[in-house]
C-alpha cells in the first residue's frame, strides 16, 4: 500500500518537475508569451523587433546572479499615476545616484565647443510598442508641437502657462538676457539637435529629471493634436523643416476630439486642453498609446486593477542577449491604504512600500507573508515635517505664516520624541528640515535648530506677534485682532494624503501640541492623492500640509522641492515661479531672497553660479525654517514577495531617480 503510494507520489513529482522545467529552463531569448505570437505569425521575430545589433541597449549592471526565468505577474497596490508611472519609465537620458547621466533612449550625445548645441544620437531600428519606428522626428515633433505650444513670435516668450508646467529646462537667456526656448531640429532619423541661447552645463540632467520623455509617437498624435497649419509656427519655420518630413494636417479642436474618440472610447475628453494634458502629458495612464516602456497599460483607468503588459518591442536585452523585461505583467490594485499590510501579509500583493510607522507589523509578519523587508535609502532633509502655505490667498493667515516667530514657536511646541514613539516606533531622530550632516549641502547646526520642546517660550513668541490676540477665546484659542477675521479663532487646516494614515495621526498630535499655544488645527483628508496634488497645483487653496516636503536629492540639479519654483511645493504656494500668475514677494522680505535665489539658479549658465544659487536656497531654509522638520531618517522600506528575485536592497529612492524605477524593475524576475 505504502509502496504504491510512494510510487504515485514519485511519478507525480517527476511529471511536475518536467512541467516546471519546461517553464523555467527555457533558454529562449524572448518571453514564451511572445515566442508563441511569433510562432503564430502575429508578431515579427525578435531580431526584427529589437534595434540593430550595435544599437541594442545591453543591461549589464543589473544582470541577475541566477538564471532568470520569463513570465509571471507582479501585483502591487495602485499608488496613483506617480507610483505606477516611474516604475516603467524610459527617459531620454537616465539620471544616476551620483548626479551624472547615462545613455538610455538616446544612445549618445555630442556637445559643441561653445556649449550651445547638443547633438543627440538615437538607436537605429528602435520601435514604439506598436511596432512603428522611433525616430528623431518623434522627438522634434514632441518638443515643437506638444511641449512648447504657444510662444510669442516676437519675444520668444512662452505665453501659455502650459509650458510653465514643467521645469523649463529649455529656457536660456539670449544676448539681451531674455529667456528664450531652445531650438530643437531634425538632422536625420537617428539624430537631432538642441540649440541653446546660452550654455547650460546641467542640461542633460535637467532633461533626465524634468523632461524624461522628450519624445512621442508623431504618427499617433498628428491627427489628435490641435494644429493650425495656416498660422506660422512659433519658431517661424515650416513644419517640413522642423520634423523632417511632410507637413502636418490642419486639425481643429472638434476634429481632434472626434479623432481621439475614434481611436478609443477611453479618450473621451471634454476639451482639447484636457486631451492635451491627459493624453499628451499623463499618457501612461491610457491604454493604446504607444510607448518605449517595458510594460504598457491595457486596462481602462477606471478598473479596480490596472494591468500593464510587456512591450514586445522593448529595446533592452540582458548580458546574455535575452530581451527584457523578464516579468510579463504588472498589476496595480486600487484599494484603501489601510488594506496594504493585510493584503501583503495574506500574499495578495507582491510589493508594498511602507515607512517606519508600519515597520514592526511588516517585519514581524515576514514569515507568515513569505516576503522580505528591504531597506531603501531616501536622500531627505526630514521625513516628518509640516509647513504653511506662504502664498495662501487669505492675507491675515499669509501674514501670520510669514512671521518667523510664528514658525519658531510652532517648531518648539512639537514634542518630537513623542511623535517618534507614537507614530514611528522610535525609529527616527528628531531633526529640523535641513540637509543631513555628511552631505555637501550641510550647514552646521541645521538639523538641530529649534527642536527643543519649550511650550512656554513658544507662547511668549506668539504673544509678541502683532495681529493676533494674547488672550484666548472661550474655546481656548487665540483670535485675530483686526482685519477681516477680527475675533475669529486662528484655525489652520492641514492637508493629508490618502495613502498615508500617519498624516492624520500627525495632524491629531499637532492639534494637541498647538492647543496650548491657542491655535486650532483641523485635518483636510484627501482620499486620493490626485485631489491633494491638484490643490497644490492651484497654489492658494490649501493652508498647510504635513509630510509634504522631504528635501532635495541635490539642490542644484533639482531645486523644485525646496525652491520657489514649482507649483506643487507646499510652503511656496503661489510664489512658485511656475504659476502663470505667481505672486511677487514683498521687497526685502525673506521670501524675496528665496525667489531671487531660485531665479538665479534657473538662469545661471555657469556651474559656479549654479552652486552659489543653490547654497543661497539652502541658507534661506536655514534662516527661515520654511518647512518645520520633526523627524528624520534616511530609510524607507519595501516588503517584497520572496518569489520576486533580483530586487535590490539599499537602493536610493527618490523622485529624481524615479523611486522604484531606480531598481530597474525590468531586471526583476519571478521564481516560485
Amino acid at each position, binding site marked *: 500500500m505504502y509502496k504504491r503510494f510512494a510510487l504515485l507520489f514519485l511519478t507525480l513529482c517527476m511529471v511536475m518537475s518536467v512541467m516546471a522545467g519546461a517553464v523555467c529552463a527555457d533558454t529562449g531569448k524572448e518571453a514564451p508569451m511572445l515566442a508563441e505570437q511569433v510562432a503564430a505569425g502575429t508578431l515579427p521575430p525578435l531580431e526584427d523587433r529589437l534595434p540593430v545589433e550595435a544599437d541594442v541597449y545591453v543591461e549589464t549592471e543589473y544582470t541577475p546572479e541566477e538564471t532568470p526565468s520569463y513570465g509571471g505577474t507582479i501585483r502591487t497596490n495602485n499608488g496613483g499615476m506617480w507610483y505606477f508611472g516611474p516604475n516603467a519609465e524610459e527617459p531620454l537620458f537616465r539620471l544616476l545616484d551620483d548626479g551624472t547621466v547615462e545613455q538610455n533612449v538616446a544612445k549618445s550625445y555630442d556637445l559643441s565647443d561653445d556649449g550651445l548645441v547638443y547633438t543627440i544620437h538615437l538607436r537605429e531600428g528602435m520601435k514604439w510598442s506598436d511596432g512603428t519606428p522611433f525616430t528623431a522626428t518623434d522627438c522634434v515633433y514632441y518638443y515643437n508641437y506638444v511641449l512648447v505650444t504657444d510662444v510669442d513670435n516676437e519675444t520668444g516668450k512662452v505665453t501659455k502657462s502650459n509650458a510653465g508646467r514643467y521645469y523649463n529646462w529649455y529656457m536660456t537667456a539670449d544676448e539681451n538676457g531674455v529667456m528664450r526656448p531652445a531650438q530643437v531640429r531634425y538632422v536625420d532619423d537617428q539624430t537631432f539637435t538642441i540649440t541653446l541661447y546660452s550654455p547650460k552645463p546641467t542640461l542633460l540632467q535637467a532633461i533626465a529629471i524634468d523632461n524624461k520623455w522628450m519624445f512621442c509617437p508623431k504618427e499617433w498624435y498628428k491627427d489628435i493634436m490641435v494644429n493650425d497649419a495656416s498660422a506660422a509656427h512659433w519658431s517661424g519655420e515650416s513644419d517640413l523643416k522642423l520634423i523632417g518630413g511632410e507637413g502636418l494636417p490642419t486639425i481643429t479642436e472638434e476634429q481632434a476630439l472626434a479623432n481621439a474618440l475614434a481611436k478609443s472610447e477611453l479618450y473621451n475628453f471634454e476639451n482639447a486642453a484636457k486631451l492635451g494634458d491627459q493624453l499628451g502629458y499623463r499618457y501612461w495612464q491610457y491604454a493604446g498609446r504607444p510607448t518605449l516602456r517595458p510594460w504598457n497599460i491595457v486596462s481602462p483607468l477606471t478598473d479596480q486593477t490596472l494591468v500593464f503588459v510587456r512591450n514586445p518591442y522593448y529595446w533592452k536585452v540582458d548580458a546574455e542577449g535575452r530581451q527584457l523585461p523578464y516579468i510579463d505583467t504588472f498589476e496595480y490594485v486600487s484599494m484603501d491604504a489601510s488594506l496594504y499590510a493585510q493584503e501583503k501579509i495574506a500574499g495578495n500583493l507582491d510589493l508594498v512600500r511602507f515607512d517606519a510607522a508600519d515597520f*514592526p507589523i511588516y517585519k514581524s509578519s515576514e514569515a507568515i507573508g513569505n516576503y522580505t523587508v528591504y531597506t531603501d535609502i531616501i536622500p531627505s532633509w526630514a521625513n516628518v515635517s509640516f509647513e504653511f502655505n506662504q502664498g495662501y490667498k487669505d492675507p491675515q493667515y499669509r501674514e501670520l505664516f510669514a512671521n518667523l516667530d510664528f514658525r519658531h514657536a510652532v517648531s518648539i511646541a512639537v514634542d518630537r520624541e513623542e511623535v517618534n514613539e507614537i507614530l514611528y516606533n522610535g525609529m527616527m531622530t528628531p531633526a529640523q528640515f535641513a540637509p543631513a550632516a555628511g552631505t555637501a549641502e550641510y550647514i552646521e547646526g541645521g538639523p538641530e535648530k529649534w527642536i527643543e520642546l519649550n511650550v512656554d517660550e513658544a507662547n511668549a513668541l506668539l504673544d509678541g506677534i502683532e495681529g493676533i490676540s494674547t488672550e484666548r477665546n472661550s474655546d481656548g484659542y487665540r483670535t485675530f485682532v483686526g482685519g477681516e477675521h477680527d475675533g475669529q479663532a486662528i484655525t489652520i487646516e492641514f492637508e493629508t494624503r490618502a495613502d498615508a494614515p500617519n498624516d492624520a495621526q500627525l495632524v491629531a498630535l499637532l492639534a494637541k501640541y498647538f492647543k496650548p499655544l491657542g491655535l486650532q488645527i483641523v485635518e483636510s483628508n484627501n482620499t486620493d492623492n490626485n485631489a491633494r496634488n491638484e490643490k497644490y497645483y492651484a497654489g492658494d487653496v490649501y493652508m498647510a500640509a504635513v509630510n509634504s516636503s522631504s528635501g532635495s536629492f541635490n539642490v542644484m540639479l533639482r531645486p523644485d522641492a525646496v525652491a520657489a519654483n514649482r507649483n506643487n511645493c507646499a510652503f511656496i504656494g503661489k510664489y512658485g515661479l511656475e504659476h502663470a500668475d505667481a505672486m511677487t514677494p514683498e521687497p526685502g522680505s525673506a521670501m524675496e531672497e528665496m525667489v531671487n535665489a531660485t531665479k538665479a539658479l534657473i538662469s545661471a549658465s555657469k556651474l559656479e553660479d549654479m552652486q552659489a544659487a543653490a547654497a543661497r536656497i539652502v541658507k534661506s531654509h536655514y534662516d527661515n525654517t520654511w518647512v518645520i522638520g520633526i523627524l528624520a531618517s534616511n530609510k524607507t522600506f519595501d516588503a517584497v514577495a520572496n518569489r520576486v528575485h533580483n530586487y535590490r536592497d539599499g537602493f536610493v529612492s527618490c523622485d529624481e531617480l524615479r523611486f522604484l524605477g531606480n531598481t530597474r524593475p525590468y531586471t526583476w524576475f519571478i521564481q516560485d
Partner: protein
Amino acid sequence: MGLFKSKNNTHSDEKKSDKYYYASQWGLMARKFRKHKLAMGSTFVLVIFYLTAIFGNFIAPQGTEQYDGKFVNCKPTPVHYFHEGKFVGPFVYGMKTERDPVTFMAQHVEDREKICRIKFFTQGDPGGEYKWLGLFPSNLHLFEAEDGGKIFLFGTDNMGRDLFSRVILGSQISLFIPVVGMLLTVVLGLAIGSLAGYFGGWIDTVIQRLIEVVRSFPQVPLWMALSAAIPKTMKPAQVFMLMTIILSLVSWPGLARVVRSKFISVKKEDFIMAARISGAPGSKLITRHMIPSFLSYIIVDMTMSIPSLIIGETTLSFLGLGLRSPATSWGVLLQETNKLETIMFYNWKLIPMIFVFLSVLAFNFMGDGLRDAADPYK
C-alpha cells in the same frame, strides 16, 4: 351583545386569574413585559450602559484628550490581587516598555518589582477634568493606580489612549445620538403623520408625496452624503446635534406613514366619533384620544428603531463621515480595526464591538419584549 355586564366582583380575592383579568392596559403590558426574561435582562443591561454613560467622565480614568505616548498599542493590563502569594488588594504592576531589536515592536512588560495599588475615588491627572452633565466641574475619578502605575483595562489604542475610558466616553455619543435622534424622529413623525391623517385632503397628499420622496432615498448613502457635508471645523457638540438631525431626517417618514394610517383607521372608531360629535376640539382629539390609542405601538416601534440608529452612527463614524478623533464614539474607536493586522496583533481593539453588539441586541430584545407585551392577542 351586552348580555352579561361585568361589574366589580364582590367576591374577588387576590387570585392570579383575577389580576390577569382586570388589570389596565398599561398594567397588563408591564406584567407581560416583566415575564419576558430576555427583555428584562436587556433592560437591565441598558440601564447599566446608560448609567455608565451618564457617569462616564467619573468612571473613565482618562479624558478624551489624554494619552500616553509611552504606551502605544498596549495590551490590557491585568489587575492582580496577590503578590508572591500575599493578598495586597487590587493592584497593577508597574510597566516597562521595550522594543524588539529586530522588529521594533513595542513590548509592554510588567515590572514585577513595582506594585501600584489601585486607589478609588481619586483626583485624576491634569487633563482629566470634566464637567459632570456639562455643569459641575470636577476631576474625581473612580479609580487610578498609585505611584504612576498604568491601568488600561481594555488596553490602549495607537495614540496611547486608554481604550476603557474611550469606550465609556464613546458610549456618551453612541448611546445618546440614537436616543435623541429617535426622539426627534418621534416628534417629526407624530407631528407630520397626524397632520396628514387628521386633516386629510391636500395636506395629506402633499405630505404623502414628501414621505414618498424621503423614503425613496436609500438610508445609508443618504446619511453618508449628508454627513460628508458637515464642515470639519465644527465642534463635537455641533456635530453631535447635526448627526442626530441627519439620522432623524431620514427615519421620520416610516413613523409618519404608520401614524397617518393609524389615524385614519382610529378616526373611524366609535369613541373618536363620539368625542368629535360631543364637540371636542381637534387638538384635544389628537392628543387626548387618538395618540394614546396607539402610543404603545409607537413606543415599540421606536425601541425597535434604535438599533439601526446605533448601527448607523457607528458605521458613519467608522467611515470617517461622522465624529472625528479626538471626539470619540464606538464607531471612531472601531476605525482602527479596519485592518487585519490590527486584529492579528492588537485584538483588544475589537472590544468596542462587544458594546455595539450588546447594546443593539439589548434594544432588540427589549423591543421584542415590549411588542409581545403590547400585543393583546399573544
